[in-house]
């Protein structure tokens, strides 16, 4: 077994991990990156659609183009990495020493590092988590599996498609199937409003004449040996099934785009504390979890809708790791807790110090027009024309502003009308 000590080991070779590795190396850290799949790039690699990099590169790129800019840079910098590396265990030996165990085709390997940046992304919610009953038939896929099949390995999952969930992932997959010549019979959304960005509703559904059923639930999947139809019903304001509204849609494939959950199993095993709202770890402004030296970024931290935010978080975690390595720990002694106020469903980071400017990433519970985002303790107010649960809000707080708070800051989203 090999043993090498790194400043930082980055787990996950998607956008958060690659951005973190590049930034950490630029900041002078000795870095290793581990990827579980056989390719670097993570999910953007299989995103053939545009809309990536509008903020980061000020260009409209496909996911594949976007991520290749990072992969190319990463490889040019000669950063050490493994693909097909399966992480089995993290051991928190001390604040400044983490040991991690990995299975690779070269054998079991153990590495130690002062810091870890955990950037493993998310896993998808599947059909049984959203209360759909019926048979467990072939022809049911999560959106991610369908996308990997099609756009990494070139396998077409089916011909007549029903998509469950109208978040961006569901919308984009609807268009992807339509572009492949499949018939997308319907996109089904439980809420009375679409889950994804407006531009995606227009470009992915309207342009292709794909029907969107709002306030509808898939209740059952039926078929003999493969999927033959789904049964849907209308729901009321309390999201309960309205009797007598049942309808069936014939299809051979059900694609479940029912949302993502941060994939942090191994972090939970070492006692990282989870936020029930984000389902990711509780972090401070360096994106350090409550275990010193363990940082997180991207969808493992909070479900993002823009890869630009994911990359930003990766770079921030790398900055955190470099501060940690320099000071043998994050030197901050006094933290101020950031609380969720009215109409804020989730936010990160959870702790700020006033030593740095901080971007607060947040989501609202309900859509609202003409709002003011208020931070009453520091007398800050930002006006926004519209907020939606589907669109992450990111607001920068300057360190001077944060310093005004005594020990807490609340964020709330109120109507300005």
């Amino acid at each position, binding site marked *: *077994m090999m043993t090498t000590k790194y400043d930082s080991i980055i787990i996950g070779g998607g956008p958060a991990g690659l951005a973190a590795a590049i930034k950490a190396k630029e900041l002078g850290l000795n870095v290793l990156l581990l990827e579980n799949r056989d390719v670097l790039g993570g999910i953007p690699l299989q995103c053939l659609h545009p809309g990536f990099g509008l903020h980061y590169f000020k260009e409209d790129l496909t996911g594949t183009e976007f991520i290749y800019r990072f992969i190319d840079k990463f490889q040019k910098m000669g950063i050490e990495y493994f693909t097909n590396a399966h992480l089995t265990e993290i051991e928190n030996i001390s604040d400044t020493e983490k040991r991690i165990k990995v299975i690779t085709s070269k054998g079991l390997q153990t590495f130690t590092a002062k810091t870890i940046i955990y950037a493993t992304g998310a896993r*998808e919610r599947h059909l049984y988590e959203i209360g759909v009953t019926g*048979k467990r038939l*072939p*022809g049911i896929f999560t959106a991610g599996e369908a996308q990997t099949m099609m756009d990494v390995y070139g*396998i*077409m999952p*089916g011909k007549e498609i029903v998509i469950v969930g109208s978040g961006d992932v569901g919308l984009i997959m609807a268009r992807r199937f339509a572009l*492949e010549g499949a018939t997308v019979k319907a996109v089904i959304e439980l809420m009375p409003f679409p889950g994804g960005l407006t531009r995606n509703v227009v470009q992915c559904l309207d342009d292709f004449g794909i029907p969107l059923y709002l306030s509808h639930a898939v209740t059952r999947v039926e078929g003999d040996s493969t999927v033959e139809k789904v049964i849907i019903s209308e729901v009321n304001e309390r999201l309960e099934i309205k009797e007598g509204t049942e309808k069936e849609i014939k299809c*051979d494939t059900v694609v479940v785009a029912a949302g993502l959950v941060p994939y942090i199993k191994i972090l939970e095993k070492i006692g990282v504390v989870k936020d029930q709202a984000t389902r990711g770890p509780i972090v401070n402004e360096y994106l350090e979890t409550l275990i010193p030296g363990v940082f997180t970024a991207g969808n493992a931290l909070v479900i993002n809708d823009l890869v630009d935010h994911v990359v930003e978080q990766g770079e921030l975690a790398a900055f955190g790791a470099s501060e940690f390595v320099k000071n043998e720990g994050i030197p901050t002694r006094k933290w101020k807790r950031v609380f969720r106020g009215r109409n804020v469903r989730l936010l990160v980071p959870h702790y700020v110090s006033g030593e740095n400017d901080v971007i607060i990433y947040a989501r609202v519970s309900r859509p609202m027009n003409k709002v003011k985002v208020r931070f009453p303790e520091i007398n800050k107010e930002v006006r926004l024309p519209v907020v939606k649960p589907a669109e992450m809000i990111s607001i920068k707080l300057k360190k001077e502003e944060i310093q005004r708070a005594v020990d807490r800051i609340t964020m709330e989203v109120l109507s300005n009308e």
Partner: protein
Amino acid sequence: METKKVVVIGAGVVGSAIARVLSKYQNLEVFLLEKNIDVGWGSSKANSAVIHPGHEDDPSKYPLRSKLCVRGNRLWHSWAEELDVPVKWPGELMLAFSERDVEKFQYYLDLAEKNGVPDVKIVYSDELRELEPNASPDAIAGLWAPTAGLIAPWDAVLGLVENAVDNGVKLFTETEVEDIVIENGIVKGVQTNRGFFEADIVINAAGLYADIISKKAGIDFDITPRRGEYYLLEEDVQPRVKRIVHQVPTEITKGVFISETVEGNILIGPSAENLPLDAKDDVSTTKKYLDYIWESAKRLLAKMPPKSSVIKTFAGLRAEPPSGRWIIEAYDNPKGFINAAGMRSPALTSSPAIAEYIVNELIKNKLGVKLVEKKDWNPYRKGIKKFKLLDDRKKEELIKENPKFGNVLCMCKEVTEAEIIEAIERMKKIGIKTISLDGIKFRTTSMFGWCQGSFCRVRIARVAANYLGMPEWKIFVKDNKSSYGVGYVKTFFKTSQGDGEV
């Protein structure tokens, strides 16, 4: 010495156990027929996985059930070891929530004594909490049966079939019995979609379809599909249960069980719902019964694991005979026909004892067949080595020998490429014609975890297709009608009406 031909219909746990016992004799030629593409895919695949102690069946009402359950429980200790099937013995706690429940305990204590189930006793307060720290505070007492166990039921079937085939049994999958051929009241064989199988003895272990098979032999009864639904929870969820916890049974059902499976997941269920006679494949789940199970389970525990830890819901069908009595019989007419039908609970537990009973009581005694034991019968079978469970040194060695052990394909259950390939090789070895992803899943536990295959299924499909030399999309999922995909991308733009191959 005269050789007899035996056809066993159905490669579920009962048919496979019978085949294994029959494989001990040198003057028998045994054919195990299965209509599905793989073995153990009926009731044996989806059930509570409990090895029951045997103190819940009244011998005056159910003489075979009570006798064979206790014997089966004992036999599984040695069989599981011989066949390298994961099993554990956590014991079972029936919880009482009222004085009336406690009064019922006396009934089960009497049965325990009559049936010869050891060490069953009533436990209260401290002892109860010590046995099961997560028992509901409302539980005033428990009936403790320490001999209860848990098994991986599909592994049990695989162990039985692989061992039986190793000892000379011939397995025919995708072979559906169309008729039982009888001449002058004597069995001559079975007609199937794959031709005629001559036989002196035909044993009907066709599970839910045993009534249809039996009718073809002129023996009439109905098997009711009784559906049970379940929740499977992720491995690391808290809080857990130490024992098999359940409620006081009713006439219909033994009630909802909560246990930690041999794989380490929490299993909750079943419900009990009689379906129409022709609904022999309806393994749909329903909101109504899933809600009922969750509510029932809540009553049993001090603290339920969160519902967000559910990784799947599923349903299985039990083969319910008229008035609950197993039909394990050999007949004077047609002679040579044996039923092992209506194999409701505790059939999984009892299957080794049922097999023994059929061979000793029915074939030897009733039919008067003289059996000669093989000298070289091999009782042992090794399961696919689970890489995840090995120690680091062993893992290192294996990767050095075969780097495919270093390629973890299923993240949740840590299943390697080498194990996937071994599963395929094993399927081929016992004669499976249609290699399916479900076949791989049940042999390796890949795609069984938290992500339910959404990360790894495509990678496993690729490895399997590559190994078999076929396009990835053509790999079968559950049966030989359900391919993983419909073609390569762009397939719908091809002008030819081809099948999508590039």
